[in-house]
């Protein structure tokens, strides 16, 4: 057990690519926590996808022993948090477990939208914040300008900002000293009943669920019986320990310390993040304020390309869900795509990560339907009784419009930082997506715009479009702000007079014709010609709002086919057969898989 005044708990706040993981690596290396030969890049990112994409998805933690200049040895606990908006809930929960943050800003780039969102979370959690200017080894580094920007945009003092190159190691010792001297020690009462915060939990094939805890009061020992206060369940603590970053058993964890426990817990779902853990008898009466559980905001269908793999997909999704309580799913049947799952995600990145993991780790090829948000559909009341509200996760399930009173859609507050010269394009993009401008300010040559936007307009390809119109110079972050009524309708798509459920979507009435036309034109290009002509229509209810006709195939024959060609042409035919098998049949029309996603990408 460590004395409270020798403990410092902190997190690192940074925009993606500003060097957070590299800085963490250097801190670990400098203090000798990991032998040099065991060092690898992005040490704390354990998933392949995390390393490949250079992002952190799960919160990770490491305990570092640091012998400071004053001769004392300190225990530094770093919780490394995800930077992406999708995982904002991970950030908020981690922030509550520590007392301070390093604010890492790339001195060649400056403050970005994500930095803002995360730093405000740190301020909300009453953190002491130490600004760190990274990448000072690069010629484009401009510490004065960036320090000024931190003061202007974020409003914290940056005069003592530490200048660091995580790459060369310059400034690392200064950073460690600042952690010791500028961040507060935790407080807590060792003799009080146990009060520990459940920070995170994940599934380990050998140990069962591993629970990351921060001890607030009292002590946690191996062999204890503890109570999870949210549901009153009792558990026998099998082992406790700390991360260095590998797991290392300890006998006791005291106030201010961060570590893990295992207690033969089978499912991550049985552990609620933010829960308070105490002694089974004579425990604390007062639970810590909990966090709200993360709500999925983006839904899409996942279907196996090969329908025979449905059971494999179920198995994969079950396993992933064991470790990710924020991901929801239920079985879905589509006339087009057969059996699959309707899944809910925290955002698009979360969706991509889960999809990639299923495809890669479980080797199942997937068809992903267009992402949709959750609409609130208010049904008409009857005889003075107010109608019920239905949460609509899938446009295909939209009830009959005549029974619907009104529909609300989720809105977000989007913050975009962009160099001056691209501002016009960004404003146009937001305007095109039904945005309402809320704020426009300048920090040097960069503009910061705040828009109120429908989430629906953002989930699909907003970020791609933003990157493309700003050549990658814009940064973007958002937070959900609530629901608002609008004139929304369900647009269905008919191919050869058959509705294709997987292509139906909710749109704003004013944009329906445009979206319908764009969709029909896209499908006309995406669907191969058949031996007959195929009408492609977009409709609202029974009313057709756009129509294209895919003309019939007139010429597809091998001109020369003699004895020597038989084998070769047969193999070619086999290949075409395989290609046809991969398409989905709608009545008599074959629709290629990519059509389901590509048709929904907007070019405007």
């Amino acid at each position, binding site marked *: 057990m460590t004395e409270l005044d020798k403990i410092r708990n902190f997190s690192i706040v940074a925009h993606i690519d500003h060097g957070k993981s590299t800085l963490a690596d250097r801190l670990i290396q400098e203090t000798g926590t990991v032998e040099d030969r065991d060092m690898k890049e992005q040490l704390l990112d354990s998933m392949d996808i995390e390393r490949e994409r250079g992002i952190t998805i799960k919160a990770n933690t490491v305990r570092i022993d640091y012998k400071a200049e004053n001769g004392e040895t300190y225990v530094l606990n770093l919780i490394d948090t995800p930077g992406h908006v999708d995982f904002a809930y991970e950030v908020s929960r981690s922030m509550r477990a520590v007392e301070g943050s390093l604010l890492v800003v790339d001195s060649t780039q400056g403050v970005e939208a994500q930095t803002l969102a995360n730093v405000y979370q740190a301020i909300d959690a009453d953190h002491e914040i130490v600004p760190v200017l990274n990448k000072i080894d690069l010629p484009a580094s401009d510490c004065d300008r960036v320090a000024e920007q931190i003061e202007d945009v974020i409003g914290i003092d940056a005069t003592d900002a530490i200048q660091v190159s995580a790459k060369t190691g310059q400034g690392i010792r200064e950073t460690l000293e600042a952690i010791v001297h500028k961040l507060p020690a935790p407080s807590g009462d060792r003799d009080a009943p146990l009060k520990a915060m459940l920070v995170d939990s994940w599934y380990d094939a050998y140990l069962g669920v591993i629970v990351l805890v921060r001890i607030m009061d009292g002590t946690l020992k191996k062999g204890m019986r503890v109570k999870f206060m949210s549901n009153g369940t009792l558990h026998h603590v099998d082992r406790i320990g700390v991360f260095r970053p590998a797991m290392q058993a300890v006998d006791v964890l005291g106030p201010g310390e961060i570590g893990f426990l295992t207690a033969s817990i089978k499912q991550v779902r049985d552990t609620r993040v933010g829960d308070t853990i105490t002694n089974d008898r004579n425990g604390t009466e007062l639970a810590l304020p909990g966090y709200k559980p993360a709500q999925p905001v983006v839904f899409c269908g996942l279907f196996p390309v090969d329908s025979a793999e449905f059971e494999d997909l179920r198995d994969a999704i079950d396993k992933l869900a064991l470790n990710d309580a924020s991901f929801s799913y239920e079985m879905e049947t589509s006339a087009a795509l057969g059996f699959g799952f309707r899944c809910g995600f925290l955002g698009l990145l979360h969706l991509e990560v889960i999809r990639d993991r299923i495809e890669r780790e479980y080797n199942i090829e997937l068809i992903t339907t267009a992402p949709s948000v959750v609409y609130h559909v208010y049904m008409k009341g009857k005889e003075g009784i107010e109608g019920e509200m239905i949460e609509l996760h899938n446009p295909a399930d939209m009830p009959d419009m005549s029974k619907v009173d009104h529909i609300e859609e989720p809105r977000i507050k989007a913050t975009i930082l962009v160099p001056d010269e691209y501002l016009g394009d960004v404003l146009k993009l937001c305007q095109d997506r039904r945005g309402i401008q809320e704020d426009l300010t300048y920090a040097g040559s960069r503009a910061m715009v705040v828009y109120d936007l429908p989430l629906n307009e953002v989930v699909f390809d907003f970020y791609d479009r933003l990157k493309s119109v700003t050549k990658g110079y814009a940064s973007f972050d958002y937070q959900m702000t609530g629901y608002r009524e609008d004139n929304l309708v369900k647009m269905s798509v008919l191919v050869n007079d058959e509705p294709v459920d997987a292509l139906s979507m909710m749109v704003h009435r004013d944009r329906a014709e445009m979206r319908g036309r764009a969709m029909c034109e896209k499908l006309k290009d995406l669907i191969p010609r058949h*031996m007959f002509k195929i009408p492609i229509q977009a409709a609202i209810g029974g009313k057709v709002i756009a129509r294209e006709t895919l003309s019939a195939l007139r010429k597809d*024959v*091998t001109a020369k086919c003699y004895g*020597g060609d038989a084998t070769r042409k047969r193999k070619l035919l086999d290949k075409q057969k395989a290609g046809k098998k991969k398409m989905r049949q709608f009545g008599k029309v074959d629709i290629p898989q990519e059509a389901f996603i590509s048709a929904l990408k907007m070019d405007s």
Partner: protein
Amino acid sequence: MDDWRNGGFGLYVHWPFCQAKCPYCDFNSHVTARIDQTKWAEAYRRELLRAAPQLSGRVLNTIFFGGGTPSLMHPDTVATVIDAAREIWPFSNDIEISLEANPTSVEAGRFVGYRDAGVNRISMGVQALNDEDLRRLGRMHSVSEARAAFDVARNCFDRVSFDLIYARQGQTIETWKAELNDALSMAIDHLSLYQLTIEAGTAFGDRYERGTLRDLPSDDNAADMYLATQEICEAHGLPAYEVSNHARPGAESRHNLIYWRYGDYLGVGPGAHGRLTLGGDRYATETYLQPGAWMEAVISGSGEAQRTLLSKDDASAEFLMMGMRLVEGLDMGRYRNISGKDLPADRIAHLVDLGMVETRDDRLIATDDGRAVLNAILRELLVE
């Protein structure tokens, strides 16, 4: 009765050499300065003798000299092959012996020699009746040279066919119609009319990839040209009997009919393919592709590089793929025998509804419109 007897038995002889490689051609052809004709004649003879024992008791219906450019063969070489075949198999009374020829004066000079060797049908690669287009197609002859060679051919042989390629760069439906009428005024009893196909790995294929093969007709224009071709040839008494082949009734290429009726054929020479029914099973055979490698293999025993037993699915797919090319269609009873199951009735009904196929007397027949989209029909019929 073995199924192959419905199609007959033929011999294909591949001559792999050309004077130059044409930019659209993906056939097994090679350009070489000196060819030892005696050595090649002997090699073909050895190959026939090697194959003979397993094909005894058959009557030979056709021989076809293809290439490459078989009109570069010395008439003695051709005679050696024909004589060797005659010693092994009895010839049917009306045996057809065809040879592909380039329409140049040099080659026309060998026509009498070919006739004396036993060749009774010539197929000439005229390709276009327009000098500019011949140059673009990489041909070494001019239109007037082709016409002169054709006259020599018709004086030597009763049966003369020639090939044209259409849907060429810059061609319109009107210029093609005019050219086709011109060709029909020359034609005797047979015409092969191929739409230009851009094959990967050819000079045209490379240019197509780079986007420098300009002014090709659109798919719709090519479809119009195809349908016009069917009508015009029919009106001139040379109706289509296969996707790209037209003949006066009775003057069809019987050798090629063996392929399309899924008979048996022995392939000799570099890169020649065969289909042989042995002990009731159909095999696909293939010889060594490179002339040098083939020659060495023949000298050390056999030019055959591969022999593959065809599964019921593969054999029935081939039968369908080849048979549907014919205007006479295919015998669904034979399909049943080869594949062990029926063609899917619901798919056929759908194709009949679309006007793509007809059924008559247990035969499945593609309509004119259907033959133009035959690959789509085959995909429909073959996908489980």
